[in-house]
């Protein structure tokens, strides 16, 4: 169990898994098969920061082929017809929606403001970062990594 999970007294892995499942199934028509391994890069990564009862950030990262397939499903397009400039936008929205679901479960009754997503392309290298919970999930379209960081400082005001 990570420091974060220990502090919160939560099974964050389970929480990330159930939240990812709900979001991906409902709006991206993608089933989560279970734990996965990080796919081959380059990756598209989208991160959202939040502040309120707690502050921190959530990010998602997926190989570009997976991101394109998810964007196509979200928009009701085929992989061939999805406008390439929409893919980062959709992955940003995935991070945004997932963050909202996770925060609602981390702290029911909490108040949060979620900042607009920041999307970037990662060529190679590990996606692991310091002081966070990260899980990789296997999808029909490939794999997706979800990371949650909650700041170590005293919770801020909403």
């Amino acid at each position, binding site marked *: 169990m990570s420091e974060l999970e220990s502090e919160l007294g939560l099974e964050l892995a389970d929480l990330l898994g159930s939240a990812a499942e709900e979001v991906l199934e409902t709006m991206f028509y*993608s*089933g989560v098969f279970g734990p996965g391994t990080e796919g081959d890069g380059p990756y598209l990564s989208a991160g959202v920061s939040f502040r309120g009862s707690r502050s921190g950030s959530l990010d998602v990262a997926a190989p570009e082929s997976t991101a394109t397939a998810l964007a196509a499903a979200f928009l009701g397009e085929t992989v061939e017809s999805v406008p390439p400039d929409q893919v980062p936008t959709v992955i940003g929205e995935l991070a945004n929606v997932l963050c909202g679901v996770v925060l609602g479960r981390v702290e029911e009754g909490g108040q949060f403001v979620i900042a607009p997503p920041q999307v970037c392309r990662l060529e190679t290298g590990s996606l692991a970062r310091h002081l966070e919970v990260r899980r990789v999930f296997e999808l029909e379209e490939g794999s997706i990594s979800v990371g949650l960081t909650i700041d170590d400082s005293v919770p801020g005001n909403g």
Partner: protein
Amino acid sequence: MAQDVIVGVADCRVSNQPESSLITYALGSCIAVVIHDPVTQVGGILHFMLPESSLDASKAEKNPYMFADTGIPMLFHQAYAQGAEKSRLVVCVAGGAQVINDAAVFNIGKRNCLAVRKVLWRAGVMIRSEAVGGTESRTVRLEVGTGRFMLRTAGRLENTSERRNDGVLCLNR
């Protein structure tokens, strides 16, 4: 005289005969896509087994009704050929249960549910009602002349759900 047309597994039937009914049985992890045009009284049922034809391209070529992504377009095109219009079609979906012996394949019932929603979303078609998931087998019947859609779930005797063609669900026991 009323005519029952049986829709088998990996099968599709469309009818414009007002006196006929389309029925499909034993929907476990399989899914029935039921469509009806209340103006031209054209109705159809597709009973598919698997989500994506890429799982087995040669099987898909032999029987496109086996898969959601190949079967659903064919269901709709056959309905259009008999006078149905996309904008008027009432679409209901049933099945996708988790079958007990499903251990070898990740919950094919759920994958079928996701596939049917994805294909219909891509096609620009709204699902009017769903009876999906759970663990029980289902039977579905569509009366072509009236658009009445009846759902029976196994294990519950004399418990049928009837959906009127205006989409309202009512229970008959």
